């Protein structure tokens, strides 16, 4: 028992302390101020949990989660279907790479949220517009990581395969694809994380359901607990999918190196 307590305090001491002081601050200390309603600005942890159970019981949370997940996965799926083959093909053909690279760079440097207004003009406030934002945002991320990793396959391996009599098709299936697979998984993981990152902004502007909408609704009806519930839910979900993709990677690619920590979206631009 004492050992467990020691482990918890050594590892999670700060977090427990912060959660406790969150509760205490907003329940008792801020409540002493009468100028504004402090519980609206900073609701205690207990009322956030109460709101979460309410939303969960009423099946509202579930609905919003499903709506957001569908949008993220459709947009991300189309982006992956286009970007992964493109990344591999362009890593093999410098001529096409020179031509297509400027286009990708243009898309990359325009923040995906900046597409929101023009995409609303193009598609209206529809599901397609949401898919488009996720698509255009995750496309360059997936492409660039796939490309970089496919490019990093050692030339010696390709030469060895040629010496051993591999034709173009065999080379692709036996050398290029397996070599790029780990990079593809990384790119999918980062891209999916980025999709979750974007869906919030996209749903703020133009949606009638989804977790981003839930958060904005919490603000509009001045129910701050709801904002917190939405934020925490979206964090947990993006963490969950990251975890699932990593587990899949270990099943499919047993030779891949174990990553010590679950990395998130912020690694997305390291390889660019």
């Amino acid at each position, binding site marked *: 028992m004492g050992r467990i307590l020691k482990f918890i305090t050594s590892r999670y001491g700060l977090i427990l302390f912060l959660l406790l002081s969150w509760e205490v601050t907003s329940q008792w200390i801020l409540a002493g101020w009468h100028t504004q309603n402090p519980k609206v600005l900073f609701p205690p942890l207990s009322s956030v949990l109460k709101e979460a159970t309410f939303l969960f019981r009423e099946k509202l949370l579930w609905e919003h989660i499903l709506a957001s997940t569908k949008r993220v996965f459709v947009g991300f799926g189309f982006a992956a279907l286009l970007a992964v083959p493109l990344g591999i093909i362009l890593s093999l053909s410098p001529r096409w790479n020179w031509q297509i690279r400027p286009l990708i760079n243009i898309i990359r440097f325009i923040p995906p*949220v900046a597409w929101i207004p023009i995409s609303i003009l193009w598609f209206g406030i529809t599901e397609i517009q949401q898919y488009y934002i996720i698509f255009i945002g995750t496309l360059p991320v997936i492409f660039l990581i796939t490309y970089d990793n496919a490019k990093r396959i050692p030339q010696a391996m390709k030469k060895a395969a040629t010496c051993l009599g591999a034709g173009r098709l065999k080379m692709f299936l036996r050398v290029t694809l397996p070599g790029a697979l780990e990079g593809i998984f990384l790119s999918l993981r980062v891209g999916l994380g980025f999709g979750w990152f974007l869906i919030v902004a996209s749903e703020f502007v133009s949606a009638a359901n989804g977790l981003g909408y839930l958060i904005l609704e919490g603000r509009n009806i001045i129910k701050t607990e709801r904002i917190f519930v939405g934020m925490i839910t979206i964090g947990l979900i993006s963490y969950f999918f990251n975890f699932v993709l990593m587990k899949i990677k270990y099943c499919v690619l047993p030779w891949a190196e174990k990553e010590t920590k679950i990395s998130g979206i912020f690694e997305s631009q390291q390889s660019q």
Partner: protein
Amino acid sequence: MNHKNLNITFFFRHFLLLTGILVFWQIFSRFIYPYFNPTASNILPPPSSILSMGWDLFKNGRLFVHILASLRRIVMGFLLAAILGLPLGILMGISKNIRLQMAPLIELLRPIPPFAWLPLALLWFGIGDRESIFLIIIAAIFPIILNTQEGIEKIDVRLINAAQSLGCAEKRRLLLKIIFPASLPSIFLGLRIGLGFSWMVLVGAEMIGSISGLGYLILDSRNLGLPNLALLGMVIIGIIGYVLDLGMRKLSNLILLWAES
């Protein structure tokens, strides 16, 4: 002559497709689309109309107001994020206890998209600069902290051992002379990633909770039904994002002469 020739082949190699797309876009939205839909408003304005829109806004100076508003926010927010994030990252890098305590907290907060903080920021700070600056800090601080920490963790132990045996035993001196310079490449990487993220988040923040800035400009152009203004805003946002990234890269190359890029 030879030099000029080289430039032309370079152009054909790299920008043939891009030029083709631009030309096709101009012809399509100028002639083909209006021919088939004569009454419809043109939702895909040709590049020429984007340019003329840009020229108009440039002449009456409205563009600079928005650009300056956005730049002010990103500079202030990013500097604050660096001031907060660098010491935290360094502390987490050199002290195991602090790292163990901070890691779960950061892992908890990091998956929350910065945009999700926006309603809270609006509630706490109201519409204006402070709300965008808060969001920029949230967006930029995690890459800065994590890369700084990682940079320090990955320092070659032999460097520290060598410094210690050469008489640099004092902790403060070790930190200033060895640990900080050795982790600088990673720190700069973190700053660069953070800057990119904060530019993106700023645009989103301005779209929802602001009455100035480039993000506001493009959302407003949608409300006004001016697609060429929206596209112009996107181009300007893209160019500024590129220039910020380039500036950060040049700065790091200037400071990190010894490091491999």
